[in-house]
């Protein structure tokens, strides 16, 4: 197979946009997943649709209008969340469904607005990325990556333990608002390639797959970005040959990766559990005259400790 898809400038733009999607969505998503707010990107996508519609109706600039709508929505979401009221959740639901309803209704009234037109915003369409869009996406991606990489420790601290971060004097609300706004920017970067209804999947699914494979936050972030780029570029390419909507194709590919990883780690975990059971933590070192009776067990000594047997294994003890 030749790379004939690169002959078309719309495909070049689509692949570049996919690259930006793969880079940015998981790097924002890792913080969203850390806070267990996996669906927040979905809500922002809903609100962005209203922006797209207003943009189409007034200026013909759906991308910039979507950015304004999503960023405004993001700030409101964060302020509602900061107040911590249960009624806040209902307020968010009203905003999200209001956004998508307004978007659908307004687009239907736009001259030239068709169901196909609406579909391309909801589910992504690789052919629709213009060179102006690409310039906007690149600028937004630069901002998003500067924040997610440069402020990674702060975003991690606040996402990991908001109360502690506040007690330590970190500007929690400001950091949360910043994360909300770059999430909105990421929604806009993804809207052409993945579509507003599927954006959240690209923020969440690569992170969900990556975290099964590694132990650290940093490694999760890097691996998730790798998976994100693989599925976004792979999915866009596949959608060109299979003539399928790019968003759905990319997300199905991401879910396939996640399923394979999850199945693999589950099998590995089962094998490991049957062979290795680590003892509870203690500073005490078992040895001659430690006060715990020892018994021979195959090639080593087990020490009887509170009714169970401990055997040295590297730096810790195993239950035998």
């Amino acid at each position, binding site marked *: 197979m030749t790379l004939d898809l690169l002959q078309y400038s719309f495909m070049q733009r689509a692949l570049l946009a996919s690259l930006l999607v793969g880079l940015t969505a998981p790097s924002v998503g890792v913080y969203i997943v850390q806070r267990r707010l996996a669906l927040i990107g979905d809500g922002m996508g809903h609100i962005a649709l209203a922006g797209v519609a207003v943009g189409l109706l007034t200026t013909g600039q759906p991308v910039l209008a979507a950015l304004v709508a999503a960023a405004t929505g993001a700030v409101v979401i964060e302020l509602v969340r900061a107040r911590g009221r249960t009624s806040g959740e209902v307020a968010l639901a009203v905003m999200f469904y209001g956004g998508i309803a307004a978007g659908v209704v307004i687009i239907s009234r736009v001259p030239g607005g068709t169901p196909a037109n609406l579909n391309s915003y909801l589910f992504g369409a690789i052919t629709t990325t213009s060179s102006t869009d690409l310039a906007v996406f690149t600028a937004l991606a630069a901002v998003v990556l500067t924040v997610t990489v440069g402020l990674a*420790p702060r975003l991690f601290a606040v996402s990991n*333990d908001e*109360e502690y971060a506040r007690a330590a004097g970190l500007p929690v609300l400001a950091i949360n608002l910043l994360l909300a706004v770059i999430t909105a920017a990421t929604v806009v970067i993804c809207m052409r390639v993945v579509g507003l209804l599927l954006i959240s999947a690209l923020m969440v699914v690569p992170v969900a797959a990556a975290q099964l494979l590694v*132990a*650290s*936050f*940093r490694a999760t972030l890097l691996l998730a970005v790798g998976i994100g780029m693989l599925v976004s570029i792979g999915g866009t390419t596949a959608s060109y040959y299979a003539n399928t909507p790019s968003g759905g194709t990319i997300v199905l590919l991401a879910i396939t990766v996640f399923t394979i990883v999850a199945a693999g780690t589950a099998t590995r975990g089962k094998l490991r559990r049957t062979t290795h059971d680590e003892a*509870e933590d203690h500073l005490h070192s078992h040895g001659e005259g430690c006060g715990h009776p020892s018994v021979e067990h195959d090639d080593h000594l087990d020490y009887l400790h509170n009714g169970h047997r401990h055997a040295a294994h590297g730096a810790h003890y195993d239950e035998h």
Partner: protein
Amino acid sequence: MTVPPVLRMVGGAVGYGARPAIRDIDVSLDVGEVVALLGPNGAGKSTLVRGILGLAPLMGGALELFGVPASTFRERFRLGYVPQRDTIVGGVPSTVREVVSSGRLARKRPFAPMRSHDREVVAAAIDVVGLTERTGVSVGKLSGGQQRRVLIARALAAEPDVLVMDEPTAGVDAANQEILAATLSQLVKGGSTLLLVAHELGPLEPLIQRVVIMGGGRVQYDGPPVSGGEGAYESVHHHAERESPPTGLGLTRRLP
């Protein structure tokens, strides 16, 4: 010039919403002191600590931290907070080093990279709690007691002037309680100031220099630890709840 107290609250009221949950609180903590804040559930211990830490609004009275009014105090990292948490696992795995490093941030400017000195402080904090061998392990793989020690190390990573710990031993198995007690006694020997919130002291009791007993949203007792172990405190709680402090135990409200 005398060293200002770590904290000094006069007539403090703290709470959420319209009505303060605790009132008329006079309490202070001097540099080098090890103070336990005791009382039954619902007595207002955690509310007081949250008020001191700026997590709950001060609705009345005055609070000074290191001689500065709390509202203008900008060095919150000097108060090392160890929250009560059963787990510190978020949606994404993070290693002991990553969680402890997040405690160092309050001393760093935005975008400033971790320098070798920061890494040394983080490594030393992990060492103090005896988790050096687990530095690169995901905190989700640790026991509850070990996770509690990670939170202590996180607080230590900011090199605070005082550790404020909410129920450090609650829900921690006996072996880990001993390790916690050993860790804290090491810190106390090094001159650390500690404020411990506790339902019961357990193995931490020998460390305590002064106790403040809360009951019904007020301070019921503030003075040296009562001899006679846990039982003595129990009797104080029960009397305190009836708002008739027992005589003969030296129950004098220490006024600032």
